[in-house]
């Protein structure tokens, strides 16, 4: 732990705050993943870990390594950008896959296809870009 003792006090306090915020928000997301009831409730909570969970720990990492090496260490921004871009894509695909599976099995709790598309009955069938 010698390298951490070389940091000035403001950097240590700021980094501690961001690390704790990130880890705690990730834990809240994980507990929500365990306790929420249906899949469509649970699909919201992994975003806690990928936004402020990752953001806090990456900010702390940027602060610590930038102060230690006396230059701006920004390669953590790569991970932040990557998570911001990929997490909506993943959850969108997963939600659509779950909705498709529930509809084909005739689960009553999900809205049927007609109510979502909103097309009148006599309209020509359009492929909705699946």
């Amino acid at each position: 732990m010698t390298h951490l003792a070389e940091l000035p006090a403001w950097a240590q306090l700021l980094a501690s705050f961001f690390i704790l915020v990130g880890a705690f928000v990730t834990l809240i997301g994980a507990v929500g993943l365990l306790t929420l009831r249906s899949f469509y409730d649970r699909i919201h909570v992994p975003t806690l870990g990928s936004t402020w969970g990752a953001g806090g720990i990456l900010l702390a990492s940027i602060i610590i390594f930038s102060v230690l090496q006396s230059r701006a260490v920004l390669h953590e921004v790569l991970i932040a950008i990557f998570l911001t871009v990929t997490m909506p894509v993943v959850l969108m695909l997963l939600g659509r896959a779950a909705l498709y599976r529930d509809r084909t099995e005739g689960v009553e709790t999900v809205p049927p296809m007609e109510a979502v598309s909103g097309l009148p009955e006599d309209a020509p069938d359009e492929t909705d870009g699946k």
Partner: protein
Amino acid sequence: MSATILMWSVTIAHVLLAVAMVCQAIRFIRGPRAQDRVMAFDAFYVSSMLLLLTFGIRTGTTLYFEAALVISLLGFVSTVALAKFLMRGEVIE
């Protein structure tokens, strides 16, 4: 004094992230359907990536950062492939 604070907060972050990974692993084992398991897996690799980043802060090496980057890349690709498989029954059509 403040070095002790930072060391303790990194340790607490390790514990919190490990508990988060345990919760996600329980959901992965229990999850009633396949999409629950895939989502728990997705959250699991994000938490493991954060755990590796905190290890990197603790040891002061950038080696853990590379591992975290590789985990985030491979986790995205594998989750997309699994979601595609759940939807269509095959990955590459």
